């Protein structure tokens, strides 16, 4: 059977039935990037518990199905806009140093606000500092503009494009990403 590595899946919102189906299909390793949970967080504490679950419970749960679980850690662009959440940026260094944290992500844009600009650039710089690749989420709305702007930020950061995966691409955004030398990701949604 073909062995599959899934580089972008949010197992936190998945059942054990899904792990069983994934293992049966040949998935042996995954990366779970940190993101939003649907309900906006309102404090740093809920990030800490979430990150700890990505490093603790979730790998344990995955191992029960023979799946190696890794994660990417970051403040996501949606919640970078809430001043109550931004303080988590001060805690991220300790996570980026951990075994099992294989990337900085998801970073990038949601609504392309100045707060998102700042969190994106800062965390890209941190990725360089920690020698980690970066996983960049592109926005659902204004995707072509958001993708171009993300590529600008990557270029300005001085990060090697080969260490950056730009994800959620579509027909209009794949070409500029490949031209820039970044990895093109197709974690896509049924309707967006």
């Amino acid at each position, binding site marked *: 059977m073909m062995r599959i590595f899934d580089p972008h899946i949010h197992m936190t919102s998945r059942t054990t039935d899904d792990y069983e189906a994934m293992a049966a299909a040949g998935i042996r390793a995954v990366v779970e990037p940190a993101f939003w949970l649907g309900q906006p967080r309102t404090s740093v504490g809920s990030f800490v518990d979430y990150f700890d679950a990505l490093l603790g*419970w979730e790998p344990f749960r995955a191992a029960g199905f023979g799946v190696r679980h890794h994660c990417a850690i970051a403040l996501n662009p949606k919640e970078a806009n809430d001043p109550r959440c931004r303080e988590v940026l001060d805690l991220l260094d300790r996570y980026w140093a951990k075994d*099992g944290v294989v990337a900085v992500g998801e970073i990038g844009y949601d609504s392309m606000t100045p707060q998102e600009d700042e969190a994106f650039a800062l965390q890209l710089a941190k990725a360089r500092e920690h020698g980690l690749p970066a996983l960049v989420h592109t926005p659902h709305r204004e995707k072509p503009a958001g993708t171009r702007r993300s590529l600008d930020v990557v270029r300005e950061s001085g990060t090697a494009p080969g260490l950056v995966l730009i994800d959620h691409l579509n027909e209009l955004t794949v070409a500029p990403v490949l031209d820039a030398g970044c990895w093109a990701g197709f974690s896509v949604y049924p309707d967006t």
Partner: protein
Amino acid sequence: LSDLWRTDMAARVLLLTGPRSRGPEPMLRLYRHGTTDERLAVLLALDIAEDADASLVALNQEALRSNDTRLIAAALGTFAARWLGAEEFRQAVLKCAFCGVPFRQIAGLPDPKDAEQGESEYGESEHCESDRADAALAGMLATFARERVAAGRDVPDDVWPVLRRFPGAVAESGLLAEPSAPDPLRAAAARRALDSYHRPEGR
């Protein structure tokens, strides 16, 4: 070396118990901010550090609230056998029975062969670090065994050495009447369980 005592784990434990790492603060901080491997190292270090502060049993208690069987097993070493309260210890043993952590990994439960040599000497009021099995624990395990049997399921073998020392707990649980249950699956599970209870392995 073993699955748990890998080289990296031994290195972590050495760092935690070495001369440069004294007092409860580093252990507390590493546990609170640690990955599972780092947390396991803290729990292992507690058994080794001679001067481990009793207040750190809060970390064992936290690990025992988790559902990660590696953390649960590592949280039941000699440090826990010394400092966990009686009811906490019983609940922890029951949790091990429930989630399949082998009893041989629990400090405070004697090796079954040694323990079964003599009469059970320790009542509920006494506290012996090397043998914390008591009638109350046996009562909980017997009830657990009966619940499993009533569902037609098998009972983990680890409970029997404890239950043989406290036959009163088994009688009180109603387990002995289960073979006459009308449901054939339930009655069969009861017979399997009582066979194991009456016929200790290796005898």
